[in-house]
């Protein structure tokens, strides 16, 4: 029997900011690239994000934060995934993230950080070449 795999992506908004236009645009771009995108809506805790990622068996988590809480929330998601023994999910981030914060986030396990103005094709390309199916 042939196997047809699809890239499944969870697009999540951790924390308290209420602006998800960027997240929705990225979700749409990934959809148009043939991926299955699960969008969970605003104000997610890291626990909710990890729970959804496991239930939906996604290959990628893409998080967007505009509030400045990325240094706390992004690494928390990574820690919770590790605690659940999940090591096959590609975790990427985006939003208003100062360049100075990026090295520490990468060291914490965020594979890549995409700031404002990133061409959508770049995000799609990054996922396609780095996802583990």
């Amino acid at each position, binding site marked *: 029997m042939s*196997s047809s795999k*699809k890239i499944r992506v969870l697009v999540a908004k951790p924390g308290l900011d209420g602006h998800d236009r960027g997240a929705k645009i990225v979700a749409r771009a990934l959809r148009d690239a043939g991926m*299955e*995108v699960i969008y*969970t809506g605003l104000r997610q805790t890291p626990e909710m994000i990890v*729970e*959804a990622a*496991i239930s939906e068996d996604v290959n990628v988590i893409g998080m967007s934060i505009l509030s400045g809480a990325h240094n706390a929330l992004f690494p928390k998601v990574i820690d919770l995934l590790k605690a659940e023994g999940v090591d096959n999910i590609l975790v990427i981030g985006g939003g208003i993230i100062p360049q100075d914060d990026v090295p520490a986030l990468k060291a914490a396990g965020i594979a890549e950080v995409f700031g404002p103005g990133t061409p959508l094709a770049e995000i799609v390309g990054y996922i396609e070449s780095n996802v583990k199916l």
Partner: protein
Amino acid sequence: MPATKLVKGVLKGNRRDLARLITLIENEHSSAATALSMLYKHTGNAHIVGVTGPPGSGKSTLVTRITAKYRKRSKTIGIVCVDPSSPFTGGALLGDRIRMQEHSLDKDVYVRSMSTRGHLGGLARATSDAVRVMDAFGKDIVIVETVGAGQSEVQVVEVAHTVIVVDVPGAGDDIQAIKAGIMEIADIFVVNKADYPGADKKVTEINAMLDLDSRERSWRPPVLVTNALTGDGIPELVDMIGKHMSYLQETGLLKQKGLQRSRDELEQIMEYKLTKELFTRLRGTPEYEQAIKKIAGRNDDPYSVAERLIAEFLTSVRG
């Protein structure tokens, strides 16, 4: 991961194994059929409830409310929400979880979003098998939310014991209510968004349609009114779902439906396997391509070619 290990995990209540097995089923992975056949004897215990209706009628919110009510009654819940895939890219945006956040940390509620992956009928090809896995996992109630359905997305009736058709005030006149298709599959009608003007009129139209139903039925689908946002009408709806199950049990219809379902399913699996076998042999062979060219050039016709190819296939199978 081998099927046996996943099956063990599912039977032990491991949610991650449940999620992985559903992925294998969706991807039509070769080990999925093995896993399903191992799980089969553990199924048949869940009450499967289908929720269908037009896009934006409040299905996801309604499912969330029903789930909350069931959780108060200590029932465990599995939910499959189906959204359409793009006919152009095959991608999909699955947004039903947005409404279901209040259950996101409840370990006894499992939600799985599913793309139709091009399948028509309101469900994905993998939906009924995913339902089965949740049943084997031990969920008391499995809710299947279809894609936003128009008129002929009626496949949910093949999967669910109880079908809820959700409608909203102001959508269409009484002619819509007497059209064939989705209006015929309901066990329970729900007029959601009860605070909108026209809710009473909608109830009257559906009841008038039911008055004209010539089928001999001892269960007349009740028409309930809900407001999924405030929760009005939800306890009555959950009671009615239970009442419908008791009706199916008491009248023997549950057994009868089970037999019919087993028959349909066996035939579907055989049909799928047979055609797959046939096409694996045919596709790509020069004779097959030649035959297609002949048909296109009007030197042969598809009817007799089909007869001939199937006859040849059967002979080769008999060996």
